[in-house]
């Protein structure tokens, strides 16, 4: 407790009266200007609370009515308004016209890259490399539904096996084993034949037996020599790209139980300009036709 307030004879300053083992504490108050700045900050904070939203009460927005969310929305709208002339041109043009116009193409590639990272990369990978288990690579030269600008745009617009879009890409392969259309031995034989189309059969006898089964059950969609059919969305079987794996077990599984990956339809969810930009961007990933 402060008991003995006295004047320190060396500095001429009063002590606080605190003393520890003969060491006394000088009382040196803050300079007045410092104190004033301190009070000014308190006044500032009170003023701030009156003017700006600072209380955790719904509707307590402050006298200025300023709200951070509205400010952000305003900025986003202003940004969108700046882009609007370009987006209007992109909406009006076909993907072919965009790809042919250097200015539109540069804008579409940049905008498509951002939109791809937002909406597509989750399944198709950051660079469109795809992922095992039915997420196709968009950078290779193998297309189930077509790799032209228009075909890519249609796929983005309507999706694949989408239940809510009438024009969606639709195809359904039978479940040959599960539905009793083929026996397990027949599935094995036809799988060997399918592998032989890309020169990878291990059992030539089985492959030979499988040829007849293939001609009867598979060729109508996948083609006589496994060349595929984009109209029907039947993948090419004679190449080295396998959406669900090209080893025998995967092929057997595909025949026995079928596959059927789905993709959302983006019409109505994305700006038509963004869909056009995505088509141009995906086309430029390396596999565009």
């Amino acid at each position, binding site marked *: 407790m402060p008991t003995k307030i006295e004047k320190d*004879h*060396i*500095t*001429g300053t009063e002590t606080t009266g605190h003393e520890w083992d003969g060491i006394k504490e000088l009382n040196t108050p803050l300079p007045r200007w410092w104190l004033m700045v301190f009070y000014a900050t308190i006044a500032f904070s009170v003023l701030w609370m009156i003017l700006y939203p600072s209380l955790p009460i719904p509707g307590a927005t402050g006298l200025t009515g300023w709200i951070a969310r509205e400010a952000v929305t305003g900025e986003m709208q202003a940004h969108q308004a700046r882009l609007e002339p370009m987006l209007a041109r992109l909406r009006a043009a076909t993907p072919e016209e965009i790809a042919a116009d250097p200015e539109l193409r540069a804008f579409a590639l940049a905008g498509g890259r951002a939109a791809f990272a937002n909406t597509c990369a989750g399944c198709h*990978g*950051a*660079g*469109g*490399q*795809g992922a095992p288990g039915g997420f196709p*690579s968009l*950078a*290779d*030269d*193998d297309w189930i539904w077509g790799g032209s600008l228009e075909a890519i745009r249609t796929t983005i617009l309507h999706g694949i096996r989408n239940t809510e879009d009438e024009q969606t890409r639709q195809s359904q392969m039978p479940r040959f084993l599960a539905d009793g259309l083929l026996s397990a031995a027949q599935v094995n034989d036809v799988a060997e034949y399918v592998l032989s189309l890309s020169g990878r059969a291990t059992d030539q006898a089985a492959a030979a037996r499988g040829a007849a089964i293939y001609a009867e059950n598979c060729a109508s969609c996948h083609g006589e020599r496994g060349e595929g059919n984009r109209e029907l969305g039947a993948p*090419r079987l004679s*190449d*080295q*790209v396998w959406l669900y794996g090209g080893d025998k077990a995967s092929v057997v599984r595909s025949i026995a139980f079928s596959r059927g990956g789905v993709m959302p339809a983006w019409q109505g969810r994305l700006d038509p300009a963004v869909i056009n930009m995505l088509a141009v961007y995906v086309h*430029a990933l*390396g*596999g565009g036709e």
Partner: protein
Amino acid sequence: MSEMKAPERLQARPAAASPAPAADLPLYADRQKVYPKAVRGPVRRVKWAVLALCLGLYYVVPWLRWDRGPGVPDQAVLVDIANARLFFLWIELWPQEIYFLAGALILGAIALFAVSSLFGRLWCGFTCPQTVWTDLFMWVERLIEGDRVERMRLDKAPWTAAKWARKTAKHAAWLAIAAATGGAWIMYFNDAPTVTREILTGTASARVYFFFGLFTTTTYVLAGWAREQVCTYMCPWPRFQAAMLDEHSLVVSYRAWRGEPRGKAKAQGVGDCVDCLACVQVCPTGIDIRDGQQLECIGCGLCIDACDQIMERLGRPKGLIAFETLSNLAASEAAVAGLPPGPERYARGMAARRPPRFIRPRTLVYAGMLSVVSLAMLAAFLLRETLGMTVIHDRAPTFVRLSDGGVRNGYTVKIANKTRETPMLALALEGPAGLRLAVPDAAGSDAAGRPLLAARPDGLAQYRVFVTAPPALRLAESTPIAFRLLDPRGRAVAREESVFLGPKP
């Protein structure tokens, strides 16, 4: 030196060991305002010439023009921040070549060390901007308020209308010079005629006005108010200059062996110093050179002119204060030990001096460093590439499996073109035979079928490049390849190494 009188400044301080410490023990020394007196003489003339040269260069250089063709700034020296280019006469540098600026600063630093080891603080006393502008401001002050005595009297006088008028005129003149200085600084970063017109018509950008204001204020405050305090308290150079100086450096020195003991001109048995204080009165930092080498001395040599004037008037030889080496001071001191003041002592002291040794290990090392750095910079400049290429391999996907079993890799090739032309460059691939190169945006192909890329003038051109390995070509997981850029004559102007990635074989 030991017989020298202790300077009054030191004597004025209270003795440290007094039992009851006085209340006036300040933590900070109050500034003693310095009123330097005007002086004439050879050193002063050199200082005026250096001042005129430095200020002339500073104010005139931004106005020099240099024709670089259409669409390019025609200012001889320009730091174009907005377009990220540095123009210096015929040289045009990109931001990534900032090391040329670093090299120039290193050269400047070594040159400063070299000059200091030879001639003391020549930089501080003659060419440092702080010295040059302070000198200019003092000259203006002297024109308006008069010389030392008048200025001291004016400062003590009550605030009459006449005093207000003089002070206002002085500060207005200072501010005008400061504004011209700040304005000239802006011109090194903007087109001089344009930015001058914009500043005067009030249409310049807020950034221009900010920096204009900033450099005007710093000039006014540092040259008008802070003056020698910048050198004594703010500048690091006086702190470590002692490491550059040695006993053979020519520094501003008082020849104590000749001047001591001080006394009236007509007194008997005294040295040449008549204690007239002329050297103290002209000193811009307000020190007494007779105290010997000290941190505050900027080596401007004005005390030499002041003392020489007095010596001439008294009919005594000049050079009581002179650019002299410490080793000569010691030699003279030793030669005159025990001799009474007089012509004999003077002659013996002067005869003991040796010409200054300019070639010593220290100066040789500095000269060597200067030549090495200069040569390195010259080589870097002569070998500077005006066309550059970078190759970035795609990160995702690292490679693409094609339907025929082949493998494709994607690359982003960037061509930096520092010229104003648009060369068509062929892209060639070095790697295992069979690899195919394709550039979808190529401008065409040359006779050998290589894709032709247009290099954007004074900019960066970017191309997507695909390299494909056919199924028959079995490569390792990672195969080193390289890209080369060929000019129309087939000469490789750039080569960049990369890799071709594929699945495990």
